[in-house]
């Protein structure tokens, strides 16, 4: 019934609000038998007095009539506050969240994009830049090119180091078996008398390999690269194609520092190293990081503010709604640790968008010199520390479970319970295909995070899945974030209960609670 009242009234009138949502304010006015001529705008104050916009004379008080107050309590509409003038907002308490500043017209809504290294934040940021920003300038493209070039040498050095390690292990193993059983050299598979194995690299690459590993170890890589890229380009390609390195690459799961994009770039070593190289869009998105210094990156943009909810309100609007400005801020998580001081600078963000790569559930992670742990667990710990941080006490969080495509591929080969946190995952059997199992696993992971979030702060966590490399997926994710912000604005006046299911992103917009199902 309330729904019917709602749709009837809203098409005729518009009311500006400061503290209460416009829906029930409208109903309030109707109940109080206030004349609401078409196209008039009213201001309603929290003590119930109202005036016509621009008129500056109080016309009356909404809650004067007992009938109105009765209906208010019947329909769970706002009732007069016990202390009509409220507590004077203490000007000395400087907290970014004490006043809903985000409701101020024209204020930029800041969104903090954050996640563990490799969770996809830089890809998402770059997609947003291509979707809503001005793309990449010449200077930015040049920087990305340099970044790709110097990263390529980083990948190569990880492979060379891994190769040395595997060679060492293989040779020592063979030495011990040689020692135990007096087997002739010819019976050894892949070994000849010269102490070689499948990981032994062509000797002429040795000097370069030693030199590269040295400068990596000393932290001097950026003293030489990308400046020396062209000089060493041919050798990079040859080394990458060397059988020893290819064998090493087969065990890339054991090389924790080698990202999955390494092959993509090393395959194009010659093209990348040339002076004329211009990164394609795909290269830009695959490249690790946004800028070489990996400092803070931010873009400002506005959406076309068209969501199903605002459309209902705006039907009779003469002028278009003012576009909300957003500022997407992405920080490299490398600098984050306990007691991090600079997080306080983000106290005023409108929402925190936390990214987790779903495909991390079976990967290992080492933070600096600490012990190795499961990467998903490391993500969870970072998530937890953000949620608990005093600066984000009242900030809504949106969780993006990213790399869904890689996750889908992996889920059938590697069980989800590889990660301890997911040890009680019991998929419904039989599952016919990847999709069904992946969907189940995704919901399970989302629920785990939601439960964690709720146990810390008692609020609902909004979750969505993304595939960082598909632009449409990122566009959907940001539309979802926008919806979340709108729900958050109106949560205090929430007469329509948002139940758990609606905090999942679903592709059908009609599942939003603010639209009645016909």
């Amino acid at each position, binding site marked *: 019934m309330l729904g019917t009242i709602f749709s009837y009234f809203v098409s005729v009138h518009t009311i500006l609000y400061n503290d209460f949502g416009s829906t029930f304010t409208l109903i309030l006015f109707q109940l109080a038998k206030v004349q609401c001529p078409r196209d008039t705008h009213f201001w309603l104050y929290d003590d119930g007095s109202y005036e016509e916009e621009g008129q500056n004379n109080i016309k009356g008080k909404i809650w004067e009539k007992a009938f109105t107050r009765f209906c208010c309590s019947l329909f769970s509409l706002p009732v007069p506050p016990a202390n009509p003038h409220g507590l004077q907002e203490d000007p*000395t308490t*400087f907290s970014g969240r004490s006043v809903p500043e985000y409701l101020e017209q024209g204020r930029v809504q800041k969104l903090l994009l954050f996640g563990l290294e490799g969770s996809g934040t830089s890809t998402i940021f770059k997609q947003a830049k291509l979707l809503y920003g001005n793309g990449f300038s010449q200077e930015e493209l040049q920087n990305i090119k340099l970044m790709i070039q110097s990263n390529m040498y980083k990948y190569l050095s990880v492979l060379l180091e891994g190769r040395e*390690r595997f060679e*060492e292990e293989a040779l*020592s193993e063979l030495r011990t078996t040689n020692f135990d059983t007096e087997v002739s050299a010819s019976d050894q598979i892949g070994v000849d008398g010269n102490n070689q194995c499948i990981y032994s690299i062509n000797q002429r690459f040795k000097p370069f390999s030693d030199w590269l590993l040295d400068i990596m*170890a*000393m*932290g001097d890589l*950026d003293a030489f690269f990308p400046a020396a890229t062209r000089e060493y380009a041919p050798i990079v390609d040859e080394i990458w194609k060397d059988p020893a390195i290819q064998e090493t690459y087969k065990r890339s799961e054991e090389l924790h520092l080698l990202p999955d994009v390494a092959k993509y770039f090393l395959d194009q070593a010659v093209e990348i190293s040339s002076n004329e190289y211009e990164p394609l869009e795909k290269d830009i998105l695959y490249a690790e990081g946004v800028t*070489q*210094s*990996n*400092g*803070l990156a*931010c873009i400002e943009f506005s959406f076309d503010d068209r969501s199903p909810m605002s459309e209902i309100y705006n039907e009779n609007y003469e002028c278009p709604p003012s576009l909300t400005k957003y500022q997407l801020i992405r*920080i490299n998580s*490398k*600098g984050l*640790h306990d*007691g991090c*001081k*600079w997080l306080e*600078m983000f106290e005023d963000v409108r929402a925190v968008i936390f990214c987790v790569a779903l495909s991390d559930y079976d990967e290992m992670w080492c933070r600096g010199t600490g012990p190795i742990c499961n990467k998903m667990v490391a993500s969870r710990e970072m998530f937890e520390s953000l949620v608990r941080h005093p600066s984000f006490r009242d900030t809504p969080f949106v969780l993006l479970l990213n790399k869904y495509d890689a996750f889908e591929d992996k889920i059938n080969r590697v069980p989800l319970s590889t990660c301890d946190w997911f040890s009680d995952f019991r998929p419904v059997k039989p599952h016919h295909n990847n999709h069904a199992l992946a969907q189940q696993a995704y919901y399970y992971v989302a629920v785990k995070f939601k439960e964690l979030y709720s146990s810390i702060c008692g609020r609902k966590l909004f979750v969505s899945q993304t595939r960082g490399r598909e632009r449409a997926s990122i566009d959907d994710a940001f539309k979802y974030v926008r919806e979340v912000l709108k729900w958050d604005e109106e949560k205090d006046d929430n007469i329509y209960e948002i139940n758990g299911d609606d905090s999942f992103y679903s592709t059908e917009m009609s599942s939003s609670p603010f639209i009645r199902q016909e």
Partner: protein
Amino acid sequence: MSVPELKERHAAATETVNNLRERLRQRRNELLDTDVAGYARSQGRSPVTFGPTDLVCCRILQGHTGKVYSLDWTPERNRIVSASQDGRLIVWNALTSQKTHAIKLPCAWVMTCAFSPTGQSVACGGLDSMCSIFNLNSLTDRDGNLPVSKTLSGHKGYVSCCQYVPNEDIHIITSSGDQTCVLWDITTGLRTSIFGGEFQSGHTADVLSVSINASDSRTFVSGSCDATARLWDTRAASRAVRTFHGHEGDVNTVKFFPDGNRFGTGSDDGTCRLFDIRTGHQLQVYHQQHGDNEVPHVTSIAFSISGRLLFAGYSNGNCYVWDTLLAKVVLNLGSPQNSHEGRISCLGLSADGSALCTGSWDTNLKIWAFGGNRRVI
């Protein structure tokens, strides 16, 4: 040598180092028979007397719309530059309270600012991992903004603090969240020296502040989240001259004592400490008991011109004036009438020592001057 063998030797070496360190610590404790306060009392010294009228707030600089994170005075001519979360640097004339420049920054998340020795340029750095230099005399561009005259990039983490090397506008030292400090040549924009880093004996956590010795500008001290302060010589960047242990929390701020033989530090553990660079001893701890609840962090410190007074700003809005000799608080600038309404994030003393400026999260800066007959000490 094989990898497992190397690992064994590494573990053994680490243990030897730790044992030696422990022995050194014990030896040092034995040698420390007294601290500054103890010695001063034994000499019959008494604390400086300070009344509320001796240091008064004579100016309030209003103009920022966000928290003030950092400030710096010019070496002469009494101008102040301040950096704020609103993404601006404001240059103030301290005597008249006028703003001479309001510089919009390319990256709004700024953590530090500094005035050059000649007063012609200001530098700032923050979460963008770069240090930007602005020449105050250059022409503003079409939008009325002062252009960046130089960008110093190369850090792999945020720039937490920067200070120009005294007497010349060419070199600047920055400290960063990437655990290093860097000496830059501003004319070329290149790094002259890197102090610390992944495989060198530097800090093992974010470096939060630096202070250059005014008496010998080739030495500087840095404070870090690894709870140590390190002394460096710019001529030998590969390892720190000395590491000072003692704090139990992040060292947020370091400042050289006026005579250049000592320096003070302030930390998250709520204490300030005085260290001697020649002997390496911790000379004094400045600590006020509060009660069991939260210990306020020391956010910034400064010494008076003779060194007799230590000004310390805390995260709860207090600003204690310590008598450095007797380790007693002689004044609290954070008392109700005067105080800032938020945390004090930065403070600095003017070049002639006659005024103290404090900056706070309440977006204001306050200038305090020695009043009445009180002479500057």
